[in-house]
């Protein structure tokens, strides 16, 4: 059921994960979304400008600043999960406490452009990796112990492309 709060929490809706292998054309769309994200975040952060980025995007939500640093921390982990799944058989990945990480002191102290630049370079490496993955490798899996789910790299690609655009939606809410 959709509520007004849902529109703020999920500005682009919830993620729909594929249950069958993606086609090459579908993958290309998601990889492009990952490639485009850093520039879109930078544009949204510029639009929201300094002061608004200190505000939460919804009551009790993270500030724009926390959203951007969270994206850098999370995508570092998601990038690592792809590497683990490509080098080990169905590896168990390491969850982290995203709320506690967002409260660590560097999140308040680091200028926002530092994490935007980090995302830009991280996504460059990530996209080169994604472009080299073979059809067989897209069906490789990893296990997430907190959610008790096994995901294919196809499913992870869709989820992580969504994750970036989901938080981009939060920044765009702040820019309004």
């Amino acid at each position, binding site marked *: 059921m959709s509520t007004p709060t849902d529109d703020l929490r999920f500005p682009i809706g919830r993620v729909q994960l594929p249950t069958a292998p993606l086609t090459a054309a579908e993958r290309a769309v998601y990889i492009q979304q990952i490639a485009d994200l850093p520039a879109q975040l930078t544009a949204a952060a510029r639009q929201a400008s300094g002061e608004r980025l200190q505000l939460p995007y919804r009551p009790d939500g993270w500030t724009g600043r926390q959203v951007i*640093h969270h994206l*850098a*921390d999370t995508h*570092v*982990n998601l*990038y*690592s999960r792809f*590497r*683990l799944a*490509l*080098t*080990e058989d169905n590896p168990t*990945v*390491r969850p*982290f*406490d995203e709320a*506690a*990480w967002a409260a*660590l*002191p*560097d999140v308040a*102290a*680091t200028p926002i452009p*530092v*994490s935007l*630049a*980090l995302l*830009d*370079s*991280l996504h*460059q*490496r*990530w996209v*080169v*990796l994604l472009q*080299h993955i073979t059809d067989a490798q897209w069906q490789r899996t990893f296990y997430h112990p907190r959610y008790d789910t096994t995901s294919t790299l196809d499913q992870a690609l869709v989820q992580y492309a969504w994750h970036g655009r989901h938080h981009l939606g939060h920044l765009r809410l702040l820019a309004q």
Partner: protein
Amino acid sequence: MAFTTPSDDHLRYPIGRPQLPTTPLMPAERAVYIQQIAELPAQLAAAAERLGEERLRLPYRPGGWTGRQVIHHLADSHLNSHCRFRLALTEDNPTIRPYDEATWAELPDATTAPVAASLALLQGLHSRWVLLLRHLSEAQWQRTFYHPENKRTSTLDQTLALYAWHGRHHLGHLELLNTVARTL
């Protein structure tokens, strides 16, 4: 039993092996290591610039990684280390996630991507890491994590010393490569 020949050791360990502290560091000692972490990205970028993309495709020793692989490895390794600090600061003696550094360095982006992305990644990552390190309290430096492959529990003080060494260790490989490349 694993061993390395004396003739190989100076190539493998151009700055020697790491010396890990067994007691808490003093603030002045930590400041030295934090400064080494802060300076590394610019030093790597300067070394890569001197070598150029072509020479970065050469291994720094027979059978060793290429310069390019060294730089991509540093980005991958340090983003994992930064995560280990965050885990140790937000959980009690967490078990961290090891990874296979040899196979990671053989993934296609690590062998083919230009080094610029990883140099920029290290720049951004180290900026955040250094700001985190400068905010740690005395008590937090004694927080620990457990490495399930080495079966070792490390304090953040020990990890700081290890990763300040790790960056300079691989910087030493790039400097060796400069010497190797000049003799070709």
